């Protein structure tokens, strides 16, 4: 069970304990993080080869949040992601090939190229979409949770967003709305210290952009280490359990860090010297988790095997995507409306 420790001044801090996470779960979360790392790195390589067009926003460095949250979800739970959504999409079980294919504008892509990197969606996996207008999906997640409440469904809607998103109006409206309707929705803020290129501290009135706002909605402030998949898992699970039990929404803030620039166009020169290196050396979620796994009795071999199989999976997906035809131009005008077409007139 997750325990939280509340201090008088600040938000509650999650205490790391080892309970509730068995070897199976740990291996799953390890695999998930490694898969995200590999797939994102591959996306970057493919971009450098000019095989990924458009933009893309990677989650390198933020793998533990996606892996930990997804592991804490149950089948049927719903994820609402941002343009930085590859990680969350993969974590819910969508195939690497589908994701890379979409980035590459191939016919085998998750959305056959219609959505692109910023809009990954797989309803069958509970990935209810990736939204590229900051804040828009927080109210949308409320609506999905309202449906669950109304129908007596037991799923939880989980909504991921960044620190910068806490300063837009829709954040405020969604939080208030979720609380007064006591909806089974969990808002997950991935605080990676930057909005696009601007440090979040320069544009935010409080130190912890999500947690320090929780009380404005009658919620408890909840923060945890976003580089530690176990901490993420436990924090998330407690919130999901609460929502599922009818206890209403939570707002979680995970401190994390992105290794690459904001998007493919960004060399991230605005970072203070040494910051990236510090995070990579000391706060890398995969390094941390590999050690955690070893400490808990899992063998090097087991972990190496996971790494190997993930590499193979990503390699194979890459080959399939390279071989896949470009998106068929026949679909340009399909699926605007439910009848499958786009006819706005007779």
């Amino acid at each position, binding site marked *: 069970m997750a325990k939280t420790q509340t201090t008088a001044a600040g938000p509650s801090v999650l205490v790391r304990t080892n309970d509730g996470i068995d070897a199976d779960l740990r291996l799953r979360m390890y695999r998930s993080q490694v898969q995200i790392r590999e797939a994102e790195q591959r996306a970057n390589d493919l971009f450098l080869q000019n095989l990924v067009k458009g933009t893309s926003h990677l989650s390198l460095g933020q793998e533990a949040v996606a892996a930990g949250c997804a592991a804490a979800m149950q089948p049927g739970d719903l994820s609402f992601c941002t343009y930085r959504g590859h990680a969350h999409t993969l974590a819910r079980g969508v195939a690497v090939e589908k994701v890379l294919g979409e980035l590459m504008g191939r016919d085998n892509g998750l*959305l056959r190229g219609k959505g692109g990197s910023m809009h990954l969606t797989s309803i069958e996996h509970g990935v209810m979409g990736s939204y590229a207008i900051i804040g*828009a999906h927080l109210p*949308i997640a409320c609506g999905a949770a*309202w449906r669950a409440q109304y129908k007596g469904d037991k799923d939880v809607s989980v909504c991921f967003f960044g620190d910068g998103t806490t300063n837009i109006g829709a954040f405020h409206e969604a939080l208030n709305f979720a609380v007064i309707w006591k909806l089974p929705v969990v808002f997950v803020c991935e605080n990676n210290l930057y909005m696009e290129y601007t440090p979040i501290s320069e544009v935010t009135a409080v130190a912890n952009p999500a947690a320090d706002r929780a009380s404005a909605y009658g919620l408890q402030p909840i923060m945890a280490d976003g580089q530690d998949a176990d901490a993420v898992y436990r924090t998330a699970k407690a919130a999901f359990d609460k929502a599922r039990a009818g206890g209403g929404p939570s707002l979680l803030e995970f401190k994390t860090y992105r290794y690459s620039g904001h998007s493919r166009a960004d060399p991230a020169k605005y970072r203070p010297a040494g910051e990236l290196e510090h995070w990579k050396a000391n706060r890398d979620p995969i390094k941390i988790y590999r050690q955690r796994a070893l400490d808990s009795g899992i063998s090097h071999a087991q972990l190496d095997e996971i790494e190997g199989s993930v590499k193979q999976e990503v390699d194979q997906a890459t080959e399939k995507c390279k071989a896949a035809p470009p998106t068929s131009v026949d679909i340009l005008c399909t*699926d605007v*409306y439910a009848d*499958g077409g786009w006819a706005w*007139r007779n």
Partner: protein
Amino acid sequence: MAELTYRDAVARGIAQEMSRDSDVVFLGEDIAKAGGVFKATVGLLEQFGPLRVRDTPISEQAILGAAMGAAMTGLKPIAEIMFSDFIAVCFDYLANEFSKSRYMTNGQVKCPLVVRTGNGGGARFGAQHSQSVENWCMMIPGLKVVAPSTPLDVIGLLAASVRDPDPVIFFEHKSLYAVKGEVPDGEIVDTLGTAKIVRPGKDATILALAMMVPRALAAAERLKAEHGVDCEVIDVRSLVPLDTQTMLASVARTGRVFTVEENPRLCGWGAELVSIIADEAFYDLDGPPVRITTPHIPLPAADALEDLAIPSVQRITNTIQRSLSA
């Protein structure tokens, strides 16, 4: 058969659909306990209970976002945006979210929802509470856009909108709420994308929407009586889908077309219709297509000014008469 106000037709239309389908839910500001600021939703809370008819905070983004999320996952929400001018504070959902999600996801996401909103002028509410903003929605791919002019059409088109699998923006005209009309008993369901010839005529075609329909009809009567000109009046009813066939066929018969638009001129629905007609019925036209619109200004509050701004029966009559006799 009963006589019903346009206002009561809204409540009856919603009730008809909520009775039929428990997935239909309804949310908005002051719509439940208070029965709506226009009293168009009186009785629904009592009939369908607080789980299906819900008051919200002043959070238009939350209202439309919640409607979208509910629609994506199996409900058929009706969301009220009190005044259509307020679409501006939640425009992202119409412009970028539920309009585009089906396409962007290659057909995965569905959004069967209805946004009802009080539209139009005549109540002396001034520039931020009087606008006709159908074109704000018509211009967005992926939306459907409806604007009824009679109590009967309110019920039938509202039912069609609720049952439609796509997002529909339903413009109720504030100045028509008190208007009465005959409505048959029993279930009423109409068809989106169908215009209605509300007055046949042979000399010119008048295209009108919502509050402009009764004015166009009155103008047509006056043109007939005073100038012997016989106008066909078409109630456009549905901007998307657009029944271009009915309109093009009419223009083919009459050779002339006039639009009567309550919106300020630029990029109004009439511009789109004229561009279609000018292209596709060019050789049917015996004279220029003419748009009669509110001038391209914000709406003033004072009655004298507002009456002058919005196309009046007199202005419609004069414009058409002058143009036909030019």
